[in-house]
């Protein structure tokens, strides 16, 4: 924490919070001494990410529990499957690991976003994110990004543990994996936003919406080669690309433009759709006066 009280600066902040009132925060303001300076989206992103980190480390049971449970299920899948199918499973273990990695990413992104709103309501902090000059939607989006970053970290631990457990080697180009996996779960983030909006409106239906995460297994293993239309479903196309990147070692720039374009399009489409549902649902909740109720 720094104190800028000794400095006198004159600055015009391009992307600062708009304020037409002429009060303490303005889009084009001179700041000096200890007068408050407007926060930019950079400050907002930093604050949201840092808060996410603090919540993550201060709920250690949640953080560690998620990793342990994911590894337990993988262990059951791996050892149980090997007992039942023998070498057949070992031959396809690379695909299973990649699929499981993407599934943990997807579940993490989806449930954290959809459950986050419920948590904020319970904590009594939701309203404060609505009455922000940045607007509720950008804050919610940044919180979603923070959740994805967190999910990447936990899924990376799970991936490393799976590779060690099975003695498998995969091509792990960080840039390629992060971009493809990130865009793949962006579509899930959109579903999470839609689910979060519906939760705000109808309250305790989180358990029902969480059932959707089992559908991610189907989407990740969708037959994109036999049924190309499935590529427009969330996760399906991204899963196929991630398999090729991590199993066959194909780098991001080696994919065709059409394939990458579709990946971006599906991600953007579902994110925009989910965001729209979220906006409509929260607006209806405001109309009904049930936004902060639980």
């Amino acid at each position, binding site marked *: 924490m720094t104190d800028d009280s000794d400095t006198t600066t004159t600055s015009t902040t391009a992307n600062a919070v708009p304020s037409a009132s002429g009060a303490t925060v303005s889009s084009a303001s001179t700041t000096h001494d200890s007068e408050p300076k407007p926060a930019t989206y950079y400050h907002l992103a930093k604050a949201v990410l840092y808060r996410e980190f603090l919540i993550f480390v201060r709920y250690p049971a949640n953080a560690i529990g998620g990793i342990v449970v994911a590894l337990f299920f993988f262990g059951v899948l791996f050892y149980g499957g090997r007992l039942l199918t023998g070498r057949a499973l070992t031959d396809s273990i690379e695909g299973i690991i990649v699929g499981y990695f993407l599934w943990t990413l997807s579940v993490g992104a989806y449930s954290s976003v959809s459950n986050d709103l419920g948590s904020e309501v319970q904590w009594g902090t939701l309203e404060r994110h609505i009455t922000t*000059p940045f607007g509720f939607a950008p804050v919610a989006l940044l919180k979603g990004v923070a959740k994805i970053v967190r999910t990447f970290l936990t899924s990376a631990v799970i991936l490393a543990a799976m590779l060690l457990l099975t003695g498998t080697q995969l091509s792990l180009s960080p840039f390629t994996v992060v971009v493809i996996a990130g865009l793949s779960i962006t579509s899930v983030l959109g579903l999470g936003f839609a689910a979060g909006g519906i939760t705000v409106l109808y309250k305790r239906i989180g358990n029902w919406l969480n059932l959707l995460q089992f559908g991610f297994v189907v989407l990740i293993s969708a037959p994109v080669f036999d049924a190309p239309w499935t590529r427009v479903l969330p996760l399906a196309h991204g899963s196929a690309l991630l398999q090729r990147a991590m199993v066959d070692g194909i780098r991001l720039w080696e994919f065709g433009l059409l394939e990458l374009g579709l990946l971006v399009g599906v991600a953007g489409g579902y994110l925009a759709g989910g965001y729209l549902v979220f906006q409509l649902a929260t607006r209806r909740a405001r109309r009904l006066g049930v936004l902060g109720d639980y």
Partner: protein
Amino acid sequence: MGRTAAADEQRDTATPATEAATTGSATAPALAIESLSKQFGDGENTVVAVDDVSLTVDPGTVVGLLGPNGAGKTTLIKCALGIVLPDTGAVRVFGSDVADSHQAAYANVDAMLEGARNDYWRLTVRENLRYFATIHGVDPASVATRHDRLLDRLNLADKADTPVRELSRGMKQKVSLASVLAGGADLVFLDEPTLGLDVESARTLRRELRRLAHEEGLTIVLSSHNMGVIEAVCDRVVMMTDGRIVADNTVSALLSAADRNVVRITSPDIDTALLTTLRSTFDVQAVESTSDGTRVDIAAGGDTLYAVMETLRADDVTIETIQTLKPELEDVFVELTGMAPEQAEQRSGSL
């Protein structure tokens, strides 16, 4: 936190667009609510929560919202904040319409609606202040000194690096207030800010609220059942019942207008016959037997007092004690709303 200086500074460097807005807001009230109505439900289940309410709050004033449960106070506040969308009417914060220019409006307003449940309990006190300052549009580094001062004033300085969940209920409540003030909003809504606080904490909070309003020009809209807080802190009281405003005036004006001066007379000579006479002639409000005799409370404003004394003298009554009972805000509240405030909440939180 210091609206004036920043506003003056901005005027020096503002672009034409912001200058126009600034000029418009220079004389604008802190809060202007116009013909606001909100109802919930349909058909027979319709509940009119707020019914055509108009209200203006000047900068730097403290306005108390009083009303029984269901009077519409919280809905009015949530409508003012845009958390609940009104059916009709408009809300402006320092000239910015909450519905049309919510980003500009929200830069100047914050609220404590959930008491102690208003921030992250796993975060420390200082982390909460920094986070909510940022969310509110202020670079937390630029207000670090102010945060320290705020924590100091609320007696939270030595708990600055303690997670909120480890604090007492009263301290949590103060952290909530601190986090609301952390972003430097010029208008804050406080819903039951002293509920659950011990006597000393409530006193500290009241003192700090008065200081913020009078020294730093903070505008406060305070909703409470606690008449003591309202009387001590507020410049003006708005009483609501059934979604409508039934009184809007200063505390002293409301008390004067009540015209309910009561004389309390105690004497061993007041017998049943005299009581019957008093009841038939005057507005006897209470009768009680005490060790000094019978105690009678009679509404005796103006010349009625002389008539009461004449009646007592005619009956050779020797007065043991006599005192005038001034009306309290609670009496005015009951008279205007026809309902008693939530006594339990009031007593638990009152000084």
